């Protein structure tokens, strides 16, 4: 195994702790540096699948490949087994692996005593509390109340250690073997270490590290601490956890300091994660074996800057002094200087006499038998219940989890599927996100999977379990999605946890009327007076009925504490390429038309400002000052030292200068029709735009049609057309110059977002140009071979995109922070943004079409809670000048069984996350690496599943049903433009596809990766949806295979941004006539573009296929 050759973990750490964050150039943290950092984990676990190199991957798929590895004790997949066997006096392996069907049950045992009890006869302790007079009160389920309780008194958990499923190492082991694995992760880690040394059979060579699983690389610039976790190769949990904890703590404090030196002198430590919870390290978390790693990282000066590494953002922190990071973290309202108590001081919490209401709301619904005991018990206002002898909290939670779930579903998700035998894997309808296995109350309020999705809907309790599952843990977010209905809350005090600044959400616990417990850090907070009043029902004393606690997605109107400056107006600057090339392509006319049409629909209010800048080899400004009779053009030809010719008349109020703007848009296409200027000074034009926008911030929209050739930021053609189809590595995926990145970071600091429309027929080095959008949270659009006559399809797409682009919602000066339950930590971010201070994403602009992904690791055992929560908070200024906070909260169960982890795996989310990781990998390392890593991800899963969960000794490729589409999706991924080799792919198109992968939301991405294919000509009303008066037939999904196509059919393929309609030669003529309006097959025009929201191609080559 390759991993064992690199056991020098100390070397790895010393590398990590070097301050490599801040000023590192983009990809400095490439393979060479990160790999050593990865070695320590790899040593335990990391590189298993590639032990024989990827050339032998097929061999893995062969029946029972992991039998051999077991013997040499070096295989990662079997690592825990080996280890365990050693400790357990070599239990036979088959005893260790339970059958998948028994697995769900095994989580239930602790619950059985309670599960079996009918609600009429609760256990004695419950009975005591159930007979409270409050019971008749309207039952109200406090979501997650039991959950919060459990961890509140960890001491009680410690009193009954034997009841905790996880710690049941003694008697529990024989019965539920898997349960006992996590019970001693630390020891097992070291056990393996020694064993690996003794088994001197390092088959692998260090060079094979290239094939290591994707998860490990994750482009981990943030010094090591984070890099270590992503992979399956995590070191001893205790060792990594404090490292990052310290790192985060220092970063957070640093940020706070930065802020308060500038504005308020409030004190706070808003990062709750900096504190290791007392007692949270249950029986199964080892203390860090040595304190050195944590201290070294902690002291490394660059560490907090290293945080901004993430996938797409490396590099120096923005030079502009900013304190936006503290904004979303917010300042404590009452930590302002003592005398300013006017608006935001938390009022003294007087006592309100609602004794009879004290606990009513804590009671679960009567029908909810399993939950009610805990609710009742903890619903009491007093504290005495904590001292009651009561079944262990974890046990209770297990009972809840075991009962509230839908066991049949789980069993179905775990059904082993032999991919070599089953052919029809696709479900009849597009795949839905798996439902998290939480109680129905929580399910009802949980965040929509379209907004917030986790790769594993059952969070593994420990990193060891996660490693064993060999699936990546991460979140996919679409935070600014267009929503149909969104509760907007205006209140003076936004209720947040005082230690971790979590916003109050449906999953917190109300201990009594006056206090609530945070579900992320478990701190008990006071309920402010204002929160007692419910504006919706106009009633008092029901904090649990507030909309914040009833909805997982809410929006707050922020108070002035969340503003560093008055909310900015909507400001739009259009930067237009008017060189000869651009005029040839002819986009200008269509842009002007589109903007003219949508001028009134631009999001904004009376303050909205617009400006225009055109450039070829010079830069042209347009004075649109109100009162002028016609627009004035000002030409600046000094592109080496750009200056702004006039200060207050270039960005003008749209309302006041509307006529002038219209004038300009009408005359602009004509103005340059005769130009002979072929050069393009994009760099200087961007600098001018930056200067123009920096006082206010806003959005710059760049239209570019060729390679920039003049001034700063000039680029050379780097692509060798002969290498387009080479199967070897693809060069030049990274930027050629850091000019665009630096500019983007400057822009981000001034709250300017840059969006790029590239309409180039030739190579324009998108890899470099895209940086201007990547780091300023912009978006990239690319129209290869755009021409207004020769390529009507692209023109159509351009127009549609532009319309959507101009009219879609926009948020300015935004920041986003993602918080998660204590014990989990986020280490890598994917998407377009700049990471400020470890976990704060700075988004100069936020738009509803962009999505984000993050990777996480389990740092601390989650044994003391049964639920894990994630909260994404997006603070932004709306186009109408309102500061708002959009908060999404997702709640997922924590499981300690490998089978449960597989049952909850979300194959689509996993595919998307892996795609993101692969993109990073192909840029930082090489394309072939990324491809190998993807393949390895599948191989890992299959072997891990086979050795750990499936007890069927059948041969073939066996995967759990929940993951049955995984190999298919990965294969599809490998055929994408971004990742394919061997087929001729233009570099720009490849880079653009990569950008898409990083920013598209999951639904789009999945259709891009694996399009939906339907047969259209024989649709029936069977199973059709009835929406209002219309019947929407629901055709079955078809496999993407030629055998599904037939000559007499018509098929529709939905690839997210394009529809393909395939008409067979013998297709029903009536269908052709009715649908396409052509009398027969022969008269269908060869290249037909339909005017719909998305383009429909009838590809001549495809229909031509049929003629063969």
């Amino acid at each position: 195994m390759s991993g064992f050759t690199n056991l020098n973990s100390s070397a790895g750490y010393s590398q990590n702790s070097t301050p490599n964050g801040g000023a590192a150039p983009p990809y400095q943290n490439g393979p060479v540096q990160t790999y050593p950092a990865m070695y320590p984990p790899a040593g335990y676990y990391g590189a298993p699948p590639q032990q024989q190199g990827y050339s032998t991957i097929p061999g893995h798929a062969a029946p029972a490949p992991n039998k051999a590895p077991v013997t040499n004790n070096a295989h990662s997949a079997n690592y825990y087994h080996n280890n365990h066997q050693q400790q357990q006096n070599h239990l036979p392996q088959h005893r260790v692996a339970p059958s998948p069907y028994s697995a769900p049950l095994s989580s239930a045992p602790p619950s059985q005593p309670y599960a079996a009890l009918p609600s009429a006869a609760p256990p004695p302790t419950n009975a005591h509390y159930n007979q409270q007079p409050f019971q008749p009160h309207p039952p109200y389920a406090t979501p997650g109340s039991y959950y919060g309780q459990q961890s509140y008194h960890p001491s009680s958990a410690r009193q009954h250690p034997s009841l905790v499923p996880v710690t049941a190492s003694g008697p529990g082991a024989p019965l539920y073997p898997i349960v006992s694995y996590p019970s001693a992760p630390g020891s097992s880690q070291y056990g393996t270490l020694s064993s690996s040394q003794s088994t001197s059979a390092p088959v692998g060579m260090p060079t094979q590290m290239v094939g290591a699983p994707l998860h490990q690389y994750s482009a981990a610039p943030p010094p090591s601490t984070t890099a270590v976790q992503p992979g399956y190769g995590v070191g001893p949990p205790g060792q990594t956890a404090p490292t990052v904890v310290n790192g985060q703590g220092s970063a957070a404090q640093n940020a706070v300091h930065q802020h308060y030196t500038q504005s308020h002198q409030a004190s706070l430590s808003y990062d709750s994660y900096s504190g290791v919870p007392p007692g949270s390290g249950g029986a199964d978390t080892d203390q860090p074996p040595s304190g050195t790693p944590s201290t070294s990282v902690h002291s490394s000066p660059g560490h907090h800057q290293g945080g901004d590494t993430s996938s797409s953002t490396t590099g120096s922190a923005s030079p502009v002094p900013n304190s936006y990071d503290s904004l979303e973290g917010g300042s404590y309202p009452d930590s302002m200087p003592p005398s300013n108590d006017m608006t935001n001081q938390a009022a003294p919490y007087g006592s309100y006499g609602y004794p009879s209401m004290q606990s009513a709301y804590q009671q679960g619904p009567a029908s909810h038998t399993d939950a009610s005991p805990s609710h009742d018990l903890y619903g009491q206002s007093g504290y005495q219940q904590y001292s009651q002898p009561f079944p262990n909290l974890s046990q209770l939670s297990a009972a809840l989890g075991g009962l509230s779930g839908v066991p049949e579903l789980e069993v179905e998700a775990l059904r082993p599927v032999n991919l070599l035998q089953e052919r029809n894997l696709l479900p009849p309808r597009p795949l839905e996100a798996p439902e998290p296995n939480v109680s129905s109350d929580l399910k009802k309020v949980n965040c929509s999977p379209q907004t917030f999705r986790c790769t594993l809907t059952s969070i593994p309790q420990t990193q060891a379990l996660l490693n064993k599952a060999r699936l990546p843990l991460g979140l996919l977010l679409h935070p600014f999605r267009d929503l149909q209905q969104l509760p907007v809350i205006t209140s003076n005090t936004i209720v947040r946890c005082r230690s971790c600044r979590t916003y109050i959400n449906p999953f917190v616990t109300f201990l009594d009327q006056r206090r609530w417990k945070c579900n992320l850090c478990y701190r008990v907070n006071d309920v402010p007076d204002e929160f007692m009043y419910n504006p919706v029902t106009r009633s008092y004393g029901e904090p649990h009925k507030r909309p914040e606690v009833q909805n997982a997605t809410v929006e707050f109107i922020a108070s002035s504490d969340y503003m560093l400056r008055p909310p900015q107006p909507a400001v739009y600057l259009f930067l237009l390429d008017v060189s000869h090339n651009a005029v040839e392509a002819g986009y200008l006319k269509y842009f002007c038309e589109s903007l003219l049409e949508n001028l009134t629909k631009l999001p904004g209010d009376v303050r909205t400002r617009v400006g225009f800048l055109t450039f070829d080899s010079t830069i042209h400004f347009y004075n649109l000052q109100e009162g002028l009779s016609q627009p004035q053009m000002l030409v600046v030809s000094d592109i080496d030292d750009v200056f702004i010719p006039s200060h207050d008349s270039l960005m003008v109020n749209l309302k006041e200068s509307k006529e002038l703007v219209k004038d300009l848009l009408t005359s602009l296409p004509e103005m340059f029709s005769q130009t002979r200027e072929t050069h393009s000074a994009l760099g200087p034009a961007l600098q001018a735009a930056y200067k123009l926008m920096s006082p206010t911030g806003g959005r710059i929209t760049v239209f570019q049609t060729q390679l920039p050739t003049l001034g700063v930021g000039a680029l050379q053609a780097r692509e060798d057309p002969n290498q387009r189809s080479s199967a070897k590595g693809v060069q030049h995926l990274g930027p050629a110059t850091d000019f665009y990145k630096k500019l983007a970071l400057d822009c981000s600091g001034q709250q300017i977002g840059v969006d790029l429309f590239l309409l180039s027929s030739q190579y324009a080095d998108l890899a470099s140009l895209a940086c201007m959008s990547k780091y300023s949270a912009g978006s990239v659009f690319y129209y290869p071979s755009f021409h207004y006559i020769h390529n009507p399809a692209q023109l159509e797409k351009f127009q549609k995109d532009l319309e959507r682009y101009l009219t879609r919602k926009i948020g300015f000066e935004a920041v986003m922070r993602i918080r998660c339950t204590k014990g989990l930590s986020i280490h890598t971010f994917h998407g377009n943004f700049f990471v400020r201070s470890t976990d704060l994403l700075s988004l100069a602009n936020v738009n509803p079409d962009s999505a984000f992904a993050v990777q996480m690791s389990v740092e601390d055992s989650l044994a003391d809670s049964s639920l894990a929560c994630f909260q994404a908070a997006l603070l932004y200024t709306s186009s109408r000048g309102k500061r708002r906070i959009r908060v999404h909260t997702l709640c997922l169960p924590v499981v300690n069984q490998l089978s449960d982890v597989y049952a909850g795996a979300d194959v689509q989310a996993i595919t998307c996350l892996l795609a993101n990781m692969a993109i990073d990998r192909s840029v930082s390392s090489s394309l072939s690496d990324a491809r190998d890593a993807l393949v390895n991800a599948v191989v890992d899963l299959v072997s891990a599943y086979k050795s750990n969960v499936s007890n069927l000794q059948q041969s073939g490729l066996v995967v759990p049903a929940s993951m049955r589409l995984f190999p298919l999706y990965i294969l599809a991924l490998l055929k994408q433009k971004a990742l394919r080799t061997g087929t001729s792919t233009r570099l720009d198109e490849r880079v653009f596809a990569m950008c898409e992968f990083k920013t598209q939301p999951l639904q789009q991405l999945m259709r891009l990766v694996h399009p939906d294919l339907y047969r259209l000509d024989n649709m029936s009303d069977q199973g059709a949806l009835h929406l209002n008066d219309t019947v929407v037939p629901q055709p079955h999904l078809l496999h993407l295979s030629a055998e599904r196509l037939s000559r007499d059919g018509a098929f529709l393929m939905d690839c997210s941004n394009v529809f393909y309609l395939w008409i067979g030669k013998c297709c029903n003529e009536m269908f052709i006539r009715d649908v396409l309006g052509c009398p027969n097959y022969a008269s269908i025009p060869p290249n037909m573009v339909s005017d719909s929201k998305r383009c429909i191609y009838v590809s001549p080559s495809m229909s031509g296929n049929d003629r063969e």
Partner: protein
Amino acid sequence: MILLTMVARVADGLPLAASIQEDEQSGRDLQQYQSQAKQLCRKLNAQSPDRCTLETGDMNFHYLIAQGVCYLSLCEASFPKKMAFAYLEDLHNEFYDQYGRRVPTVTRPYSFIEFDTYIQKMKKSYVDSRARRNLGSINTELQDVQRIMVANIEEVLQRGEAISALDTKASNLSSLSKKYRSDAKYLNTRSTYAKVAAVAVFFITLIIYVRFWWL
């Protein structure tokens, strides 16, 4: 040069409108002034003087309170005071016309941010030296600027703190005296007990002595 303008409700310091700084040499860090302005708005109350100039470094805050609304501007020290107050007066007239009645009801910060457009325009006309001459002649008799109080921003901002410090000290003192009182009581009782005990011991000894030795 007017750098910053802010309109706030006096009752609770809620910002109503503001003009974002539009300064070509934005190297100047206005962030600090921005937060000072916010604090200032919170400090002001109905008892504060109607017009006041606060010095902070080489800048001056001028403010005007009228009809429960505070108009605050940050100007360079060299900017004529008369102009500054004429500017604020202008803002007040327009603002009161447009939003005056809605001021007490709003809860959201920067509810009237749209007023920014007007502020920008006014600012431009006051900063522009040519236009200034005309305005200046109109507004000569507008007010007697000499009477306007001048204070230092630090004093204003820290006045509240001094009072609250006094308050804490006083409450400390009172709690200490309470403690002293209870301690004294405790001591008293203890000494009483001691006395009683001594007497009791004496008598018991006496009784024992009488019981066993005398008889």
